[in-house]
């Protein structure tokens, strides 16, 4: 339903709001389907950060969608044909929830039955993510890192020359900015932010036993800092979290992950084979998982913060530019 509403709505702001609701809905849907880890991530990402980024982008690109000039009939036809073929394809699929479906026959039983002896972590998702398929995860962290670098190179600004005029216009803007006014919001968030950070750390280190892990913790951590940046202004946040350091943290996270693999190579195992990290294989697994989850958390949090800061910084710069133009016109 919401998806259909997204198609119809022309106002992009409303579209973004609907996307947020859609994200939250799909998160609850994932809970129903027993995928608690995924739901966690989707709730943080789909309902939180993605909406925020889209909002930031919309403020820069304009809110209205142009009225359509071309006929959507052809597109509709293509969609219906593809959809029809896909539905025809599903007729051979195993039924929803059946446990003798081919998906459940291959490696899944091994993960479910043996992971406790081999890895010693109750959360199977974590042990698959960080141990059995650690190589995939390394690749994914690398993709996230690369995306962060991409955003950085597309949106980062040349070092600002502090002209007098710019400062003046900035002061003017600062007065009517939201974070200078809402006292209640600022105080409440001041109380909340430490708890959000603490929760992120809990999610980070408790991922072995309950739902959670580096990905979710990274996103939650970044969300807390983004909240701070929104309420206290980008400049304050930039002073607290130096951009260079954050970029360094992103790189260090990935490096930590990869170097765990290299260390296990040196110790005579395969790449990312944690059994050799300690005398006892289980302890080695624990150590390895802890370290790489830390790496994942660092990179994800840092990249999310980089992305947000760059979007917001770009926006501020644009606002200054328009302000300057206005004052010159007068």
């Amino acid at each position, binding site marked *: 339903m919401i*998806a*259909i509403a*997204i*198609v119809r709505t022309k106002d992009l702001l409303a*579209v*973004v709001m609907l*996307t947020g609701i*859609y994200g939250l809905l*799909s998160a609850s*849907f994932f809970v129903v*389907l*027993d*995928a*608690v*880890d*995924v739901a966690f*991530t*989707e709730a943080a*990402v*789909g309902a939180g*950060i*993605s909406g925020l*980024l*889209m909002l930031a*982008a919309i403020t820069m*690109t*304009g809110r209205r*969608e142009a009225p*359509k*000039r071309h006929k*959507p009939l052809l597109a509709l036809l*293509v*969609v219906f044909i593809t*959809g029809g073929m*896909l*539905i025809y394809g599903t007729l051979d699929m195993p*039924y*929803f*929830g059946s446990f003798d479906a081919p*998906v459940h026959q291959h490696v899944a039983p091994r993960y*479910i039955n043996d992971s*406790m002896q081999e890895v010693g972590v*109750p*959360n*199977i*998702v974590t042990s*698959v993510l960080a141990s059995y398929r650690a190589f995939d995860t390394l690749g*994914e962290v690398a*993709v996230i890192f690369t*995306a962060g670098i991409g*955003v950085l190179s597309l*949106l980062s600004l040349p070092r600002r020359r502090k002209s007098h005029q710019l400062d003046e216009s900035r002061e003017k803007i600062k007065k009517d900015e939201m974070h200078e006014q809402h006292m209640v919001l600022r105080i409440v968030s001041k109380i909340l932010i430490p708890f959000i950070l603490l929760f992120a750390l809990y999610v980070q280190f408790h991922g072995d*036993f*309950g*739902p959670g892990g580096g*990905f979710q913790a990274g996103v939650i951590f970044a969300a807390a800092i983004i909240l701070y940046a929104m309420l206290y202004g980008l400049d304050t946040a930039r002073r607290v979290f130096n951009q260079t350091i954050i970029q360094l943290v992103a790189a260090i996270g990935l490096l930590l992950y990869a170097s765990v693999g290299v260390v296990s190579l040196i110790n005579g195992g395969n790449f990312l084979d944690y059994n050799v990290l300690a005398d006892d294989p289980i302890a080695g697994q624990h150590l390895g998982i802890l370290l790489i989850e830390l790496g994942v958390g660092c990179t994800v949090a840092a*990249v999310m913060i980089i*992305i947000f800061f760059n*979007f917001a910084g*770009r926006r501020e710069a644009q606002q200054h530019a328009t302000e300057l133009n206005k004052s010159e016109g007068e």
Partner: protein
Amino acid sequence: MVLGLYNYWIVVLLMMIGFYIVIAHGNLIKKLVGLTIFQTSVFIFYISMGNVDSGSAPILAEGVARYSNPLPHVLILTAIVVGIATTALGLALVVRIKESYGSIEEDEIQIQDQLTEDKTSC
């Protein structure tokens, strides 16, 4: 009997909605939203495949005999975070396009491209 397949149909429906937005709308941000919907439909597809009747979340506990398949969860978990990172990259591109073209409507951008091409060829 065929009702057992309803999860795939929901997925196909969502997927087609996303697909429709991508091909029928000219606004670049709207296109990205469409891609996100498409992406989520794939996520739901994987997760619903991993679901097992009367199964429990794949966290080992006493007295639970049947768990959902953890493998799709792992794949989708990372895919979500990778998805937001790539979406952010896309949004960054859109912002740059807006800055250099002054518009994020596909046809307007194409007209401008055509104009500059004509100029250089003359």
